[in-house]
């Protein structure tokens, strides 16, 4: 499944980039994230419990940051496995400084979903993934707002 | 074994008292605990209709109800209709019109149609097709099932 989109952050590019490298911020943004442990500078282990209505899926997996070009771009690799299947997502994230202390983030990536989720959950995947992104951005906006105000 | 619940269910007029795990599907309970194998299981997600039974007179999917929920209720399965030598009029029409082939989906159709014919004694073809849309038959292409229902409706209303 192709994942593509953009989001306007109301903060300068450096701040946004910093947030994307901050496991606490990322962790807070991801719905259902239960635990996130740093392995090294760019590797994290995480457990995730996604509850979508009656459907609940627990995943354990890793988050890797690569190809970092601060503050322009970063690639996120998420891998998770659980009883309902697995998810592997690669997202290339670009940050464009719009000059007015706002940053346009554009992301393009691939999400591979496997197992029961993929084989019988097709009709839920789109709306649910949209919802996860939406919730995540809302949370990131809030985090930025707080940080940016603090600065 | 997790916790079990005592249940008392009337199936085809007979009272059964059993202990069941709450997760036991009604379809499995009927088939394997009570040995009423006429109810068939085709998909276990509520689409194929093979497991249709009457729950307090209403046609429902027995794969989407837990046995424990049948406690105190009345179930009817295909076994309550006719016997090989004394077929129910609808069963006879199915036979006469060649409305079944492998027979696996047939009990589900019958249990959907028995209450349907009670409510619609003179159904139109469109009504019949809509009534059986929740039952999948891979063998017959439905045309002969529709004919059988028309035939049964005519017979039943004449008998009244």
């Amino acid at each position, binding site marked *: 499944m192709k994942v593509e989109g953009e989001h306007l952050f109301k903060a300068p590019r450096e701040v946004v980039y910093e947030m994307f490298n901050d496991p606490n911020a990322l962790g807070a943004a991801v719905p259902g994230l239960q635990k996130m442990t740093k392995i090294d500078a760019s590797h994290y282990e995480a457990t995730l419990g996604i509850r979508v209505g009656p459907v609940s899926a627990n995943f354990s997996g890793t988050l890797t940051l690569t190809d970092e070009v601060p503050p322009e771009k970063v690639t996120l690799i998420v891998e998770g496995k659980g009883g309902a299947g697995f998810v592997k997502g690669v997202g290339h994230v670009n940050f464009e400084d719009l000059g007015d202390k706002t940053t346009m983030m554009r992301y393009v990536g691939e999400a591979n979903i496997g197992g029961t989720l993929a084989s019988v959950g097709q009709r839920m995947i789109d*709306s649910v993934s949209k919802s996860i992104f939406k919730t995540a951005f809302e949370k990131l906006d809030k985090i930025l707002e707080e940080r940016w105000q603090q600065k | 074994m997790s916790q079990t619940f005592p249940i008392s269910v009337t199936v085809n007029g007979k009272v059964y008292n059993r202990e069941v795990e*709450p*997760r036991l599907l009604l379809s499995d309970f009927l088939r394997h605990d009570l040995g009423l194998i006429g109810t068939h299981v085709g998909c276990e997600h509520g689409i194929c209709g093979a497991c249709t039974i009457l729950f307090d007179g209403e046609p429902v*999917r027995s794969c*989407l109800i837990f046995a424990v929920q049948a406690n105190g209720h009345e179930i009817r399965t295909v076994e309550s209709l006719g016997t090989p030598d004394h077929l129910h009029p609808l069963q006879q029409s199915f036979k006469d019109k060649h409305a079944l082939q492998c027979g696996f989906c047939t009990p589900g159709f019958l249990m959907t149609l028995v209450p349907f014919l009670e409510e619609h004694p003179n159904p139109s073809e469109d009504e019949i097709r809509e009534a059986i849309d929740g039952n999948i038959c891979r063998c017959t292409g439905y045309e002969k099932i529709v004919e059988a229902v028309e035939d049964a409706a005519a017979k039943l209303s004449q008998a009244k």
Partner: protein
Amino acid sequence: MKPVNFDYYAPTSVEEALDTLAELGYNGKVLAGGQSLIAAMNFRMARPGALVDLNNIPELSYIKPTPEGGLAIGTMTRVYAVEHSPEVAKRFPLLPEVAKFIAHPQIRRRGTFGGAIAHADPAGQLPSISMVMNMKCLIKGKGKEDRWVDAPDLIIGPFMTVIEPDEMLAEVVINPLPARTGARYEQVSRQNGGYAQAAVASIVTLDEKDNCKDVRMILMGVGELPILSTKASEILVGNKPTTEAIEAVAEEAAASEIDPATDLHGTAEYRRSITRVLIVRSLTEAFARAEKGG
């Protein structure tokens, strides 16, 4: 395909149900008709720790008139009962019209009105209809004041509502529609009883000069959530619902208000295209019905 184990509770009163839900918290899950939930459990996609079965609470099943002339529907009322209720047909003919599209007769016999709304399936018919009809949802929780939530505020995400784990949807109230109101549901699905690829429901009211006095239109299956159109009222209210005006609504709403997905059964572009078509069909018929008195 067999469900995992769970604890089972079969309260016989609302009070007992609320006690149990409060005790279970996040571990508990209401079992209403179960027609979506048990299927998901059979696939082991859903693994609730405990189920609180509302099927033994007869007091949750009813359709009764409200003093205002509307209807109050108990959460456990079967969809089939709503579909075939003369009371419902008389006041809200849109409901039986929609109900026929919900899965198949056997599912409607068991599936419940409140359960379907609380399930908040973005492609489900009843959540959308509850929104377009602005139904009032009564939510109860142990030790909490009863609260009423408008349906459009109930659903906050796909399969997500504001109902807390210790709460339950108890009743849905539909207020009477004004005179000269017409409604129409239009849906495209691959098959009879299948999931909607796109659907539109409109409720319109005409004034004495045959101008559009009010319009509510919902677009479903074409976004993360059902979408209440604002374009429809912007363009139509105060004006004659001409073919051109209706087409303008269709054009604009389909272009800017929806975010359909591409999936196995159709592309986003196709869904956009049929949404446009369904808006025209739905509004045209709704206005025609309003003209006839609703």
